[in-house]
């Protein structure tokens, strides 16, 4: 696990090694163990290494024996052992025991198609010194990040945007349309990022850069076209367990100790149980607890620890601590957030790193692929009721939604009905499940300044998304459509990045996600929806598959999504507002930055300070506006490429000799 960066002169102009070094130095947190830069005329590859497999010999950029192909790679190919055996049989010879070399040889053998054989999480770039061609790829689900931009006539890529900005001359401007996507979907949608001209290689995509041309193409996407109707619940549960056991087993391949996050929820408890029951790996588990009981899951964590007998350690997270680390969090997310939930994950990865662990397994992805989210349940109830809008009994089910949200549960009956009311005409909308959420979030656009409104113009993010759906989307059932929206967008763009990779790698810790093994994902999408959510029982098949393996109270508990204190982290009852929040939300500063209406933000801040509990929308407003201001401050106004350049070892340089044939 590592950080990668690189550059390619599109008209053949050479790259200055010092410029690549600047890129590499921004990524010290991703790889403190070794840092290097390789230049070959117009191409440069940079790398920062967190050594996990073949600690002694896995330095990068790495080449084939003939030095034709060079790779810079971030990630893990979990089936590298099997792939290596097959390559050995074909006559390939290896000098290390690491997966990097396997990937390099696989590319040599199969070219761009090699990605179909990979089971893992990756972003990498391979430079072919003969054809002068750069090949880049990103894993199916978007676990590992990869960004790119063009500056003048130079193509640049990196694991994080800050490395792109470190290259001299790259423009740093906020993308107004991305801001509008954020205040609709909770994130900018790939390939867009928060910055104009900076793009993300979407999950499941590869890219070639050669002869001055950049070509991007999709090699994989989640599909819900046909369901396997021959499967009964028992054999499906058995198959799911089998796949999960193997997905977990191969994710324990590492030459360093492996830990797991144990939140007390179903998914992380399942992963911990699988490690304990089906492998011999010695296991340490880690969790976050909260001062505030509405977020705290300690009691479930404790029953899982007892039942599974793990060696466990946790941090107790306070609102003021979240407020304190939030600027660092945004430095790593490189995008604004509507929730502070990434912050405790950042604090947790620090504990994990301090205990000497570089790798953790977690339960991420289960809710998306196996049907766990309340938004799926909400859509199901709204549909069920919408068929008979006059029914007195059907809307009673609305009380089953969001049991963990005090404000929703306190809703008067008539209001609950009014909020969720649906009519059959709405059913046909492909965004039926998500429109209420997006409409609620869009209310925050009230805070936009006139300048921002003008920059956004007639852009309509929901309309744009309609034009970018997969061809077969309209033919999918409603449950699958909702699953796709979560799996293709929010999973990579928020859960796996802002709350995942960026928070764990901020402290040099790599996350691994057995539920996102592509075999598990493809199997799950072949299951009919009723096996995922049976009536209103979420993740039904998973619960059935792990019956007896996890504590019964965790198996039967009501789902509680992971959340953290939001606005109260900045404007708490104790009145301790962090200095940066006062500065960034001051009317003069808001006026200068030109994104939000100072008077409106001021009223929101006053409301937050008054001490009464805020609703969802106001909490999102405070967190979203403050994090956008932090983003502008750290990446546009006051960007420093050497922000944490001192972390990690000195950068090693290597320059390939100029070839005679060029």
């Amino acid at each position: 696990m590592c950080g990668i960066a690189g550059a390619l002169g599109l008209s053949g102009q050479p790259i200055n090694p010092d410029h690549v070094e600047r890129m590499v130095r921004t990524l010290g947190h991703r790889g403190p163990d070794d840092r290097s830069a390789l230049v070959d005329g117009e191409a440069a590859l940079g790398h920062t290494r967190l050594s996990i497999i073949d600690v002694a010999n896995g330095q990068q950029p790495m080449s084939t024996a003939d030095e034709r192909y060079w790779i810079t790679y971030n990630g893990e190919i979990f089936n590298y052992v099997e792939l290596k055996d097959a390559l050995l049989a074909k006559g390939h010879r290896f000098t290390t025991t690491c997966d990097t070399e396997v990937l390099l040889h696989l590319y040599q053998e199969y070219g761009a198609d090699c990605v179909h054989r990979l089971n893992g999480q990756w972003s990498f770039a391979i430079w072919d010194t003969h054809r002068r061609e750069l090949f880049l790829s990103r894993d199916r689900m978007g676990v590992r990040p990869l960004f790119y931009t063009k500056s003048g006539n130079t193509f640049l890529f990196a694991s994080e945007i800050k490395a792109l900005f470190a290259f001299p001359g790259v423009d740093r401007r906020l993308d107004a349309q991305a801001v509008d996507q954020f205040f609709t979907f909770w994130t900018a949608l790939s390939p867009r990022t928060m910055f104009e001209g900076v793009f993300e290689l979407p999950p499941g995509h590869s890219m070639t850069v050669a002869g001055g041309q950049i070509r991007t193409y999709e090699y994989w996407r989640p599909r819900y076209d046909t369901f396997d109707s021959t499967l009964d619940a028992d054999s499906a549960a058995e198959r799911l367990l089998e796949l999960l056991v193997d997905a977990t087993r191969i994710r324990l391949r590492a030459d360093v100790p492996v830990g797991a996050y144990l939140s007390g929820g179903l998914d992380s408890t399942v992963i911990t149980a699988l490690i304990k029951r089906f492998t011999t790996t010695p296991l340490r588990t880690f969790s976050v607890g909260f001062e505030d009981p509405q977020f705290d899951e300690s009691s479930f964590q404790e029953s899982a620890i007892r039942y599974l007998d793990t060696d466990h350690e946790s941090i107790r997270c306070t609102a003021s601590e979240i407020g304190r680390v939030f600027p660092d969090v945004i430095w790593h997310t490189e995008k604004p957030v509507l929730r502070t939930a990434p912050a405790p994950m950042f604090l947790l990865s620090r504990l994990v790193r301090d205990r000497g662990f570089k790798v953790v397994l977690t339960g991420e992805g289960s809710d998306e692929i196996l049907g766990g989210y309340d938004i799926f349940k909400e859509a199901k109830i709204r549909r069920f009721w919408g068929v008979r809008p006059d029914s007195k009994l059907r809307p009673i089910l609305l009380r089953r939604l969001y049991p963990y949200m005090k404000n929703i549960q306190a809703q008067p009956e008539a209001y609950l009905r009014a909020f969720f009311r649906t009519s059959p005409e709405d059913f046909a909308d492909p965004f039926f499940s998500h429109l209420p959420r997006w409409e609620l979030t869009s209310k925050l656009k009230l805070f936009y300044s006139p300048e921002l409104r003008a920059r956004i113009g007639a852009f309509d993010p929901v309309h744009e998304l309609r034009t970018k759906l997969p061809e077969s989307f309209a033919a999918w059932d409603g449950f699958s459509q909702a699953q796709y929206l979560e799996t293709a967008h929010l999973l990579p763009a928020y859960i796996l990045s802002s709350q995942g990779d960026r928070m764990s790698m901020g402290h040099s810790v790599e996350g691994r996600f057995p539920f996102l093994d592509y075999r598990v994902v493809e199997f799950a999408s072949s299951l009919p929806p009723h096996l995922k959510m049976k009536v209103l029982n979420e993740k039904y098949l998973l619960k059935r598959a792990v019956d007896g393996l996890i504590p019964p109270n965790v198996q039967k508990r009501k789902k509680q999504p992971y959340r953290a204190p939001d606005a109260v982290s900045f404007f708490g009852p104790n009145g301790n507002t962090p200095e940066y929040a006062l500065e960034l939300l001051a009317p003069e500063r808001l006026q200068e930055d030109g994104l939000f209406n100072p008077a409106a933000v001021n009223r929101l801040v006053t409301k937050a300070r008054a001490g009464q509990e805020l609703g969802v929308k106001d909490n999102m407003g405070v967190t979203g506006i403050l994090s956008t201001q932090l983003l502008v401050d750290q990446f546009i106004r006051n960007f420093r490429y050497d922000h944490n350049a001192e972390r990690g070892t000195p950068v090693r340089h290597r320059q390939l000799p100029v070839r005679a044939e060029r």
Partner: protein
Amino acid sequence: MQNEVRQFVIDNFLFGQSDRQLDDSDSFLESGIIDSTGVLELIAFIETKYQVSIADDELVPANLDSIERVSAFIERKLQAKAGVPQ
């Protein structure tokens, strides 16, 4: 009364953005002014400011869904409190 209610709605739900057209008869629900927690804030405002208590069966849009309706509802509550026969 109507002005007090209007001011509360503009300050608390629209954050002072009163350039938005808001008629006294506009439905809070249909215009999206009040979200799922907004109604709780509205109830707290009425109970604290006017010192009346609202029963569960009064928590319906017919009483609370526009500036006009809220004002009329508060009037009725205040009259009932003062012992004026309705």
